[in-house]
Protein backbone atom coordinates (compact mmCIF):
# COMPACT_ATOMS: atom_id res chain seq x y z
CA UNK A 1 0.00 0.00 0.00
CA UNK A 2 2.85 2.29 0.85
CA UNK A 3 4.44 1.43 -2.47
CA UNK A 4 1.29 2.39 -4.36
CA UNK A 5 1.09 5.65 -2.47
CA UNK A 6 4.70 6.46 -3.35
CA UNK A 7 4.09 5.77 -7.04
CA UNK A 8 0.95 7.91 -7.01
CA UNK A 9 2.83 10.72 -5.32
CA UNK A 10 5.65 10.50 -7.86
CA UNK A 11 3.17 10.60 -10.74
CA UNK A 12 1.45 13.61 -9.23
CA UNK A 13 4.77 15.41 -8.92
CA UNK A 14 5.72 14.60 -12.51
CA UNK A 15 2.35 15.77 -13.79
CA UNK A 16 2.53 18.92 -11.70
CA UNK A 17 5.94 19.78 -13.12
CA UNK A 18 5.40 18.77 -16.74
CA UNK A 19 1.68 19.29 -17.13
CA UNK A 20 1.47 22.89 -18.25
CA UNK A 21 4.15 22.36 -20.93
CA UNK A 22 2.81 19.07 -22.16
CA UNK A 23 -0.83 20.09 -22.38
CA UNK A 24 -0.66 23.66 -23.72
CA UNK A 25 -0.17 23.67 -27.50
CA UNK A 26 1.70 26.60 -28.99
CA UNK A 27 -0.53 29.35 -30.24
CA UNK A 28 -1.07 29.07 -34.01
CA UNK A 29 -1.70 32.10 -36.10
CA UNK A 30 -1.72 33.22 -39.70
CA UNK A 31 0.73 35.80 -40.90
CA UNK A 32 -0.93 38.10 -43.36
CA UNK A 33 0.61 41.00 -45.15
CA UNK A 34 0.90 43.18 -48.16
CA UNK A 35 3.75 43.79 -50.62
CA UNK A 36 4.31 46.99 -52.53
CA UNK A 37 7.05 48.39 -54.73
CA UNK A 38 7.17 52.09 -55.38
CA UNK A 39 3.83 52.35 -53.64
CA UNK A 40 2.12 49.91 -56.03
CA UNK A 41 0.83 46.47 -55.02
CA UNK A 42 3.18 43.73 -56.16
CA UNK A 43 2.05 40.32 -57.32
CA UNK A 44 4.36 37.30 -57.30
CA UNK A 45 6.31 38.33 -54.24
CA UNK A 46 7.51 35.27 -52.33
CA UNK A 47 7.64 35.60 -48.54
CA UNK A 48 9.04 32.94 -46.26
CA UNK A 49 10.02 32.60 -42.61
CA UNK A 50 13.18 31.08 -41.20
CA UNK A 51 12.09 28.23 -38.98
CA UNK A 52 14.96 25.79 -38.54
CA UNK A 53 13.24 23.96 -35.69
CA UNK A 54 9.95 23.61 -37.54
CA UNK A 55 8.92 20.22 -38.87
CA UNK A 56 10.49 19.48 -42.22
CA UNK A 57 8.26 20.87 -44.98
CA UNK A 58 5.99 18.26 -46.45
CA UNK A 59 7.24 17.30 -49.90
CA UNK A 60 4.62 18.13 -52.44
CA UNK A 61 4.00 18.10 -56.15
CA UNK A 62 3.56 21.33 -58.07
CA UNK A 63 2.89 22.15 -61.71
CA UNK A 64 4.29 24.88 -63.93
CA UNK A 65 2.47 24.74 -67.25
CA UNK A 66 3.90 25.77 -70.62
CA UNK A 67 0.80 27.14 -72.22
CA UNK A 68 0.31 29.76 -74.87
CA UNK A 69 4.06 30.25 -75.08
CA UNK A 70 4.27 31.21 -71.42
CA UNK A 71 5.04 29.58 -68.12
CA UNK A 72 2.10 29.52 -65.75
CA UNK A 73 2.50 30.44 -62.97
CA UNK A 74 5.41 32.71 -63.64
CA UNK A 75 6.50 32.55 -60.02
CA UNK A 76 6.15 29.41 -57.96
CA UNK A 77 7.20 29.02 -54.33
CA UNK A 78 7.73 25.46 -53.14
CA UNK A 79 9.49 23.78 -50.25
CA UNK A 80 12.77 21.97 -50.76
CA UNK A 81 12.20 18.34 -51.66
CA UNK A 82 9.15 19.08 -53.75
CA UNK A 83 8.68 17.90 -57.31
CA UNK A 84 7.64 20.30 -60.04
CA UNK A 85 5.97 18.94 -63.18
CA UNK A 86 6.52 20.95 -66.35
CA UNK A 87 3.93 19.78 -68.90
CA UNK A 88 3.94 21.12 -72.43
CA UNK A 89 0.40 22.23 -73.26
CA UNK A 90 1.31 23.90 -76.54
CA UNK A 91 1.34 22.42 -80.04
CA UNK A 92 4.99 23.41 -80.35
CA UNK A 93 8.06 21.94 -78.71
CA UNK A 94 9.50 23.63 -75.67
CA UNK A 95 12.96 23.24 -74.14
CA UNK A 96 12.96 24.21 -70.48
CA UNK A 97 16.28 24.85 -68.85
CA UNK A 98 17.75 26.63 -65.84
CA UNK A 99 21.40 27.45 -65.34
CA UNK A 100 21.02 29.72 -62.32
CA UNK A 101 22.29 29.14 -58.82
CA UNK A 102 19.63 26.58 -57.98
CA UNK A 103 19.36 23.23 -59.63
CA UNK A 104 20.86 23.39 -63.12
CA UNK A 105 19.00 21.34 -65.68
CA UNK A 106 18.10 21.19 -69.34
CA UNK A 107 15.06 19.06 -70.05
CA UNK A 108 15.52 19.03 -73.81
CA UNK A 109 12.73 19.39 -76.34
CA UNK A 110 9.51 17.62 -75.64
CA UNK A 111 6.25 17.58 -77.56
CA UNK A 112 2.71 18.55 -76.81
CA UNK A 113 1.06 16.62 -74.03
CA UNK A 114 4.37 15.37 -72.67
CA UNK A 115 5.65 16.33 -69.25
CA UNK A 116 8.98 16.28 -67.48
CA UNK A 117 9.74 17.11 -63.89
CA UNK A 118 12.46 18.41 -61.60
CA UNK A 119 13.04 17.90 -57.90
CA UNK A 120 14.03 20.88 -55.79
CA UNK A 121 16.93 19.56 -53.79
CA UNK A 122 18.10 22.79 -52.19
CA UNK A 123 16.90 26.25 -51.31
CA UNK A 124 17.50 28.57 -54.26
CA UNK A 125 15.99 30.92 -56.78
CA UNK A 126 15.69 28.89 -59.98
CA UNK A 127 15.17 30.93 -63.13
CA UNK A 128 13.52 28.97 -65.92
CA UNK A 129 13.78 29.68 -69.62
CA UNK A 130 12.82 28.03 -72.86
CA UNK A 131 15.76 27.68 -75.22
CA UNK A 132 13.42 28.06 -78.19
CA UNK A 133 11.20 30.94 -77.11
CA UNK A 134 13.23 33.78 -75.62
CA UNK A 135 10.27 35.50 -73.98
CA UNK A 136 9.37 32.54 -71.84
CA UNK A 137 10.73 32.95 -68.32
CA UNK A 138 9.64 31.94 -64.85
CA UNK A 139 10.98 31.55 -61.35
CA UNK A 140 10.76 28.64 -58.98
CA UNK A 141 11.67 29.75 -55.48
CA UNK A 142 12.66 26.73 -53.41
CA UNK A 143 12.41 27.56 -49.70
CA UNK A 144 13.70 25.57 -46.77
CA UNK A 145 10.69 26.34 -44.62
CA UNK A 146 7.11 25.17 -44.24
CA UNK A 147 6.00 28.79 -43.86
CA UNK A 148 5.84 30.58 -47.19
CA UNK A 149 3.39 32.36 -49.46
CA UNK A 150 3.19 34.22 -52.78
CA UNK A 151 1.39 37.53 -53.09
CA UNK A 152 -1.64 37.87 -55.33
CA UNK A 153 -2.55 40.67 -57.73
CA UNK A 154 -3.40 42.99 -54.87
CA UNK A 155 -0.05 42.35 -53.22
CA UNK A 156 -1.72 40.42 -50.38
CA UNK A 157 -0.33 37.21 -48.97
CA UNK A 158 -1.12 34.90 -46.08
CA UNK A 159 0.97 32.22 -44.42
CA UNK A 160 -1.29 29.88 -42.49
CA UNK A 161 -0.65 27.85 -39.36
CA UNK A 162 2.45 29.60 -38.10
CA UNK A 163 3.27 29.10 -34.38
CA UNK A 164 3.32 32.43 -32.64
CA UNK A 165 6.74 33.89 -32.06
CA UNK A 166 9.45 36.01 -33.57
CA UNK A 167 10.85 35.02 -36.97
CA UNK A 168 13.24 36.27 -39.56
CA UNK A 169 11.35 36.72 -42.80
CA UNK A 170 12.61 37.05 -46.37
CA UNK A 171 10.77 38.69 -49.23
CA UNK A 172 11.84 38.14 -52.83
CA UNK A 173 10.57 39.54 -56.08
CA UNK A 174 11.92 39.41 -59.60
CA UNK A 175 14.56 41.99 -60.34
CA UNK A 176 14.88 43.34 -56.82
CA UNK A 177 16.99 42.82 -53.76
CA UNK A 178 15.71 40.20 -51.34
CA UNK A 179 14.52 41.88 -48.14
CA UNK A 180 15.06 40.33 -44.73
CA UNK A 181 13.94 41.47 -41.27
CA UNK A 182 12.14 40.12 -38.24
CA UNK A 183 8.44 39.83 -37.64
CA UNK A 184 6.37 38.91 -34.62
CA UNK A 185 3.69 36.40 -35.48
CA UNK A 186 0.69 36.44 -33.20
CA UNK A 187 0.40 40.10 -32.45
CA UNK A 188 -2.29 40.57 -35.10
CA UNK A 189 -0.28 43.09 -37.06
CA UNK A 190 0.00 42.57 -40.83
CA UNK A 191 3.46 42.45 -42.32
CA UNK A 192 4.04 45.34 -44.68
CA UNK A 193 6.78 44.73 -47.23
CA UNK A 194 7.97 47.62 -49.28
CA UNK A 195 10.66 48.13 -51.90
Amino acid sequence: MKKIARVALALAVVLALAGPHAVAAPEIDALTGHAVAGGKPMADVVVWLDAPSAPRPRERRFVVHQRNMEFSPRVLAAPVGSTVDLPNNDRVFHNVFSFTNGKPFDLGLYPTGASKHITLDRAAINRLYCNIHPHMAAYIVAVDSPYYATSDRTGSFSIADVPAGRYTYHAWRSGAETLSATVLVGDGQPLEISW
Partner: protein
Amino acid sequence: MVSARTGRVLLLFLALTAPCVAAAQDVAVTTEADITVGRSTADDVRAAGTQLRAFGTLPREWRFYAEASWADQWGEKSDAFGSAYPYNHRVRPVEIYVERTSTSPHSLWGTRVGRYRAPFGLYNRSDHAYTGFLRAPLIRYGGYWALSNNFLETGASVVAGTPRLYGEVSLGIPQDEDDLHRARGFDRVGRVQASVGDVIVGASYIHTQPFKEQFWAHGDTEFSGVDARWMRGGVQLRGEWIDGHPFAGTKTFGGYADLMVHRQFMGPVTAVLRAERLDYEAGPFSSYPRRYTAGAKVRLSSMLVAHVNVLHEPPYDHDAAETALDVALTFSLRR
Protein backbone atom coordinates in the same frame (compact mmCIF):
# COMPACT_ATOMS: atom_id res chain seq x y z
CA MET B 1 -11.31 29.11 -100.87
CA VAL B 2 -9.36 31.85 -99.09
CA SER B 3 -7.27 34.03 -101.37
CA ALA B 4 -4.06 35.72 -100.31
CA ARG B 5 -5.87 39.05 -100.24
CA THR B 6 -8.60 37.63 -98.05
CA GLY B 7 -5.94 36.25 -95.76
CA ARG B 8 -4.30 39.62 -95.43
CA VAL B 9 -7.63 41.26 -94.69
CA LEU B 10 -8.36 38.59 -92.12
CA LEU B 11 -5.00 39.12 -90.48
CA LEU B 12 -5.48 42.87 -90.36
CA PHE B 13 -8.95 42.38 -88.94
CA LEU B 14 -7.57 40.08 -86.27
CA ALA B 15 -4.81 42.50 -85.35
CA LEU B 16 -7.19 45.42 -85.08
CA THR B 17 -9.96 43.67 -83.25
CA ALA B 18 -7.96 41.46 -80.93
CA PRO B 19 -7.60 44.06 -78.14
CA CYS B 20 -11.33 44.88 -78.36
CA VAL B 21 -12.26 41.22 -78.23
CA ALA B 22 -9.90 40.72 -75.33
CA ALA B 23 -11.49 43.53 -73.39
CA ALA B 24 -15.00 42.43 -74.22
CA GLN B 25 -14.79 38.73 -73.56
CA ASP B 26 -11.77 38.34 -71.36
CA VAL B 27 -9.84 36.69 -74.17
CA ALA B 28 -6.11 36.52 -73.56
CA VAL B 29 -4.02 37.97 -76.36
CA THR B 30 -0.24 38.09 -76.62
CA THR B 31 1.53 39.98 -79.36
CA GLU B 32 5.12 39.57 -80.47
CA ALA B 33 7.40 41.24 -82.94
CA ASP B 34 10.72 39.90 -84.20
CA ILE B 35 13.05 42.09 -86.19
CA THR B 36 16.04 40.46 -87.83
CA VAL B 37 18.90 41.94 -89.80
CA GLY B 38 21.58 39.80 -91.34
CA ARG B 39 24.42 39.63 -93.75
CA SER B 40 26.06 36.80 -95.62
CA THR B 41 29.42 36.92 -97.33
CA ALA B 42 28.04 34.59 -100.02
CA ASP B 43 26.99 36.81 -102.90
CA ASP B 44 27.08 39.75 -100.49
CA VAL B 45 23.52 39.09 -99.39
CA ARG B 46 21.98 41.49 -96.90
CA ALA B 47 18.60 40.83 -95.41
CA ALA B 48 16.09 42.37 -93.08
CA GLY B 49 12.84 40.91 -91.92
CA THR B 50 10.15 41.26 -89.35
CA GLN B 51 7.40 39.00 -88.13
CA LEU B 52 4.38 40.19 -86.23
CA ARG B 53 2.25 37.65 -84.47
CA ALA B 54 -0.75 37.60 -82.21
CA PHE B 55 -1.85 34.54 -80.36
CA GLY B 56 -3.91 33.68 -77.37
CA THR B 57 -6.90 31.94 -75.96
CA LEU B 58 -10.54 32.03 -76.96
CA PRO B 59 -13.60 30.76 -75.12
CA ARG B 60 -14.04 27.01 -74.70
CA GLU B 61 -10.35 26.19 -74.77
CA TRP B 62 -9.84 27.36 -78.34
CA ARG B 63 -6.68 29.21 -79.22
CA PHE B 64 -5.79 31.38 -82.15
CA TYR B 65 -2.57 32.23 -83.92
CA ALA B 66 -1.96 34.85 -86.59
CA GLU B 67 1.35 35.84 -88.07
CA ALA B 68 2.41 38.29 -90.74
CA SER B 69 5.84 38.67 -92.21
CA TRP B 70 7.78 41.23 -94.18
CA ALA B 71 11.29 40.56 -95.35
CA ASP B 72 13.62 41.52 -98.12
CA GLN B 73 17.03 40.62 -99.43
CA TRP B 74 19.60 42.62 -101.30
CA GLY B 75 22.31 41.09 -103.37
CA GLU B 76 22.20 37.85 -105.30
CA LYS B 77 19.30 35.46 -104.97
CA SER B 78 20.19 33.18 -102.08
CA ASP B 79 18.73 30.88 -99.49
CA ALA B 80 20.52 32.85 -96.76
CA PHE B 81 18.14 33.75 -93.93
CA GLY B 82 15.27 32.03 -95.69
CA SER B 83 14.78 29.34 -93.09
CA ALA B 84 11.12 29.92 -92.41
CA TYR B 85 9.75 33.02 -94.07
CA PRO B 86 9.51 34.40 -97.58
CA TYR B 87 11.89 37.23 -98.46
CA ASN B 88 10.09 39.07 -101.20
CA HIS B 89 9.59 42.64 -100.03
CA ARG B 90 5.90 42.29 -99.35
CA VAL B 91 3.83 42.03 -96.23
CA ARG B 92 2.54 38.50 -96.22
CA PRO B 93 0.18 36.71 -93.89
CA VAL B 94 1.81 33.46 -92.91
CA GLU B 95 -0.05 31.21 -90.51
CA ILE B 96 -3.59 32.12 -89.43
CA TYR B 97 -5.54 29.47 -87.60
CA VAL B 98 -7.59 28.49 -84.62
CA GLU B 99 -6.95 25.28 -82.76
CA ARG B 100 -8.08 23.27 -79.84
CA THR B 101 -5.95 20.67 -78.10
CA SER B 102 -6.81 18.40 -75.23
CA THR B 103 -4.11 16.50 -73.41
CA SER B 104 -3.86 14.10 -70.55
CA PRO B 105 -1.16 11.56 -69.72
CA HIS B 106 -3.07 8.97 -71.72
CA SER B 107 -4.72 10.88 -74.50
CA LEU B 108 -4.06 13.65 -76.94
CA TRP B 109 -6.37 15.05 -79.51
CA GLY B 110 -6.59 18.32 -81.26
CA THR B 111 -7.83 20.10 -84.31
CA ARG B 112 -6.51 23.05 -86.24
CA VAL B 113 -8.43 25.03 -88.86
CA GLY B 114 -7.07 27.79 -91.05
CA ARG B 115 -3.75 28.25 -92.78
CA TYR B 116 -0.75 26.50 -91.32
CA ARG B 117 2.55 24.94 -92.28
CA ALA B 118 2.25 21.49 -93.79
CA PRO B 119 2.58 19.06 -90.87
CA PHE B 120 5.39 17.08 -92.48
CA GLY B 121 8.52 16.01 -90.61
CA LEU B 122 10.19 18.59 -88.39
CA TYR B 123 7.70 21.29 -89.28
CA ASN B 124 7.10 22.63 -85.82
CA ARG B 125 7.66 26.31 -85.15
CA SER B 126 10.25 25.25 -82.60
CA ASP B 127 12.21 23.51 -85.34
CA HIS B 128 12.16 25.68 -88.41
CA ALA B 129 13.39 28.85 -86.74
CA TYR B 130 15.29 30.18 -83.76
CA THR B 131 17.37 27.10 -83.28
CA GLY B 132 20.66 28.51 -84.42
CA PHE B 133 20.56 27.91 -88.16
CA LEU B 134 20.06 30.79 -90.54
CA ARG B 135 19.23 28.69 -93.56
CA ALA B 136 16.71 25.97 -94.06
CA PRO B 137 18.16 22.53 -94.76
CA LEU B 138 18.66 21.99 -98.48
CA ILE B 139 15.91 19.40 -98.46
CA ARG B 140 13.51 21.88 -96.83
CA TYR B 141 14.10 24.78 -99.22
CA GLY B 142 11.72 25.05 -102.15
CA GLY B 143 14.34 26.50 -104.46
CA TYR B 144 16.18 23.18 -104.44
CA TRP B 145 13.33 21.06 -105.79
CA ALA B 146 12.60 19.88 -102.32
CA LEU B 147 9.91 20.06 -99.68
CA SER B 148 9.80 23.70 -98.65
CA ASN B 149 9.45 24.87 -95.08
CA ASN B 150 7.18 27.52 -96.54
CA PHE B 151 4.53 25.14 -97.84
CA LEU B 152 1.32 26.48 -96.34
CA GLU B 153 -1.92 24.55 -96.27
CA THR B 154 -5.38 26.02 -95.93
CA GLY B 155 -7.59 23.39 -94.44
CA ALA B 156 -8.02 21.39 -91.31
CA SER B 157 -5.80 19.02 -89.40
CA VAL B 158 -6.59 16.54 -86.69
CA VAL B 159 -4.22 15.08 -84.11
CA ALA B 160 -5.16 11.99 -82.15
CA GLY B 161 -3.39 9.51 -79.94
CA THR B 162 -1.40 9.87 -76.77
CA PRO B 163 1.48 12.21 -75.98
CA ARG B 164 3.83 9.29 -76.66
CA LEU B 165 2.23 8.09 -79.88
CA TYR B 166 -0.01 10.15 -82.07
CA GLY B 167 -1.00 10.69 -85.63
CA GLU B 168 -1.78 13.87 -87.50
CA VAL B 169 -3.76 14.19 -90.71
CA SER B 170 -4.24 17.36 -92.71
CA LEU B 171 -6.56 17.91 -95.64
CA GLY B 172 -6.40 21.18 -97.48
CA ILE B 173 -5.34 23.20 -100.46
CA PRO B 174 -1.91 24.73 -101.03
CA GLN B 175 -1.65 28.44 -100.37
CA ASP B 176 1.98 29.49 -100.45
CA GLU B 177 3.34 32.96 -99.84
CA ASP B 178 6.82 32.45 -101.20
CA ASP B 179 7.99 33.43 -104.68
CA LEU B 180 6.89 30.01 -105.87
CA HIS B 181 3.30 28.87 -105.52
CA ARG B 182 2.03 25.37 -105.86
CA ALA B 183 -0.77 24.76 -108.32
CA ARG B 184 -4.30 24.38 -107.05
CA GLY B 185 -5.32 20.97 -105.88
CA PHE B 186 -6.22 18.85 -102.94
CA ASP B 187 -3.39 18.13 -100.48
CA ARG B 188 -3.11 15.20 -98.13
CA VAL B 189 -0.51 15.22 -95.39
CA GLY B 190 -0.07 12.59 -92.70
CA ARG B 191 2.34 12.12 -89.88
CA VAL B 192 2.85 9.72 -86.98
CA GLN B 193 5.16 10.48 -84.09
CA ALA B 194 6.33 8.34 -81.20
CA SER B 195 8.51 9.21 -78.24
CA VAL B 196 10.31 6.84 -75.92
CA GLY B 197 12.56 8.27 -73.27
CA ASP B 198 14.94 10.72 -74.87
CA VAL B 199 14.08 9.68 -78.40
CA ILE B 200 11.34 11.04 -80.67
CA VAL B 201 10.78 9.48 -84.08
CA GLY B 202 8.33 10.30 -86.82
CA ALA B 203 7.26 9.38 -90.32
CA SER B 204 5.45 11.68 -92.73
CA TYR B 205 3.84 11.71 -96.14
CA ILE B 206 2.58 14.52 -98.36
CA HIS B 207 0.75 14.49 -101.65
CA THR B 208 0.52 17.91 -103.26
CA GLN B 209 1.04 19.80 -106.51
CA PRO B 210 4.17 21.15 -108.18
CA PHE B 211 4.99 24.84 -108.40
CA LYS B 212 2.83 26.43 -111.06
CA GLU B 213 5.55 28.88 -112.13
CA GLN B 214 7.53 25.91 -113.45
CA PHE B 215 5.50 25.35 -116.57
CA TRP B 216 7.39 22.17 -117.44
CA ALA B 217 6.49 20.55 -114.12
CA HIS B 218 3.64 18.10 -114.57
CA GLY B 219 2.09 15.44 -112.45
CA ASP B 220 1.97 15.36 -108.70
CA THR B 221 4.39 16.19 -105.95
CA GLU B 222 4.90 13.43 -103.45
CA PHE B 223 7.33 13.08 -100.57
CA SER B 224 7.82 10.63 -97.72
CA GLY B 225 10.14 11.20 -94.82
CA VAL B 226 11.41 9.89 -91.55
CA ASP B 227 12.79 11.99 -88.75
CA ALA B 228 14.37 11.35 -85.41
CA ARG B 229 15.67 13.27 -82.48
CA TRP B 230 17.58 12.40 -79.35
CA MET B 231 18.15 14.72 -76.41
CA ARG B 232 19.97 14.49 -73.14
CA GLY B 233 21.63 16.97 -70.82
CA GLY B 234 21.52 19.90 -73.20
CA VAL B 235 22.66 17.91 -76.23
CA GLN B 236 20.25 17.39 -79.08
CA LEU B 237 20.76 15.34 -82.20
CA ARG B 238 18.08 15.50 -84.85
CA GLY B 239 17.67 14.73 -88.48
CA GLU B 240 15.35 14.06 -91.38
CA TRP B 241 15.55 11.93 -94.46
CA ILE B 242 13.12 12.79 -97.23
CA ASP B 243 12.52 11.00 -100.50
CA GLY B 244 10.10 11.81 -103.27
CA HIS B 245 9.48 13.55 -106.56
CA PRO B 246 8.80 17.27 -107.00
CA PHE B 247 7.09 16.54 -110.33
CA ALA B 248 6.81 13.74 -112.85
CA GLY B 249 10.07 12.29 -114.15
CA THR B 250 12.27 13.64 -111.38
CA LYS B 251 13.43 12.47 -108.03
CA THR B 252 14.62 14.38 -104.98
CA PHE B 253 16.02 12.82 -101.88
CA GLY B 254 18.30 13.87 -99.09
CA GLY B 255 18.55 14.70 -95.48
CA TYR B 256 20.39 16.44 -92.74
CA ALA B 257 21.70 15.81 -89.26
CA ASP B 258 21.85 18.61 -86.71
CA LEU B 259 23.77 18.64 -83.47
CA MET B 260 22.84 21.32 -80.95
CA VAL B 261 24.71 21.69 -77.70
CA HIS B 262 23.58 23.88 -74.83
CA ARG B 263 25.45 22.95 -71.67
CA GLN B 264 25.61 24.90 -68.46
CA PHE B 265 29.18 26.06 -68.89
CA MET B 266 28.19 27.59 -72.24
CA GLY B 267 25.92 30.13 -70.61
CA PRO B 268 23.91 31.94 -73.30
CA VAL B 269 25.54 30.11 -76.20
CA THR B 270 23.99 27.24 -78.12
CA ALA B 271 26.45 25.64 -80.54
CA VAL B 272 25.13 24.03 -83.71
CA LEU B 273 26.52 21.71 -86.38
CA ARG B 274 24.81 20.46 -89.51
CA ALA B 275 25.75 18.04 -92.28
CA GLU B 276 23.39 17.65 -95.20
CA ARG B 277 22.94 16.43 -98.71
CA LEU B 278 20.41 16.70 -101.47
CA ASP B 279 20.19 14.66 -104.65
CA TYR B 280 18.00 16.02 -107.43
CA GLU B 281 17.84 13.61 -110.32
CA ALA B 282 16.49 15.13 -113.50
CA GLY B 283 18.75 13.98 -116.30
CA PRO B 284 21.03 16.77 -117.49
CA PHE B 285 19.59 19.13 -114.87
CA SER B 286 20.52 16.92 -111.93
CA SER B 287 22.38 18.42 -109.02
CA TYR B 288 23.92 17.01 -105.90
CA PRO B 289 24.73 19.75 -103.41
CA ARG B 290 26.33 19.01 -100.05
CA ARG B 291 26.70 21.47 -97.22
CA TYR B 292 28.27 21.64 -93.78
CA THR B 293 27.40 24.29 -91.22
CA ALA B 294 28.87 25.24 -87.87
CA GLY B 295 27.50 28.05 -85.81
CA ALA B 296 26.11 29.44 -82.63
CA LYS B 297 23.09 31.15 -81.25
CA VAL B 298 23.92 33.61 -78.51
CA ARG B 299 21.16 34.81 -76.29
CA LEU B 300 22.36 38.30 -75.45
CA SER B 301 19.25 39.17 -73.46
CA SER B 302 15.58 38.21 -73.36
CA MET B 303 15.10 40.54 -76.34
CA LEU B 304 18.27 40.13 -78.34
CA VAL B 305 19.68 37.01 -79.99
CA ALA B 306 22.72 36.81 -82.24
CA HIS B 307 23.37 34.07 -84.78
CA VAL B 308 26.62 33.18 -86.48
CA ASN B 309 26.89 30.42 -89.09
CA VAL B 310 29.85 29.30 -91.17
CA LEU B 311 28.90 27.20 -94.19
CA HIS B 312 31.03 25.13 -96.50
CA GLU B 313 29.91 23.56 -99.74
CA PRO B 314 32.33 21.19 -101.45
CA PRO B 315 32.62 21.49 -105.23
CA TYR B 316 30.02 19.66 -107.30
CA ASP B 317 29.23 19.63 -111.00
CA HIS B 318 30.86 22.76 -112.36
CA ASP B 319 30.56 24.80 -109.17
CA ALA B 320 33.62 25.53 -107.10
CA ALA B 321 33.75 24.99 -103.37
CA GLU B 322 32.25 27.81 -101.40
CA THR B 323 32.56 28.98 -97.83
CA ALA B 324 30.29 31.63 -96.39
CA LEU B 325 29.76 33.46 -93.16
CA ASP B 326 26.21 34.35 -92.17
CA VAL B 327 25.53 36.64 -89.23
CA ALA B 328 22.21 37.91 -87.95
CA LEU B 329 20.78 39.79 -85.02
CA THR B 330 17.18 39.35 -83.89
CA PHE B 331 15.39 41.78 -81.65
CA SER B 332 12.16 40.52 -80.10
CA LEU B 333 9.38 42.24 -78.26
CA ARG B 334 6.39 40.74 -76.52
CA ARG B 335 3.33 42.40 -75.04
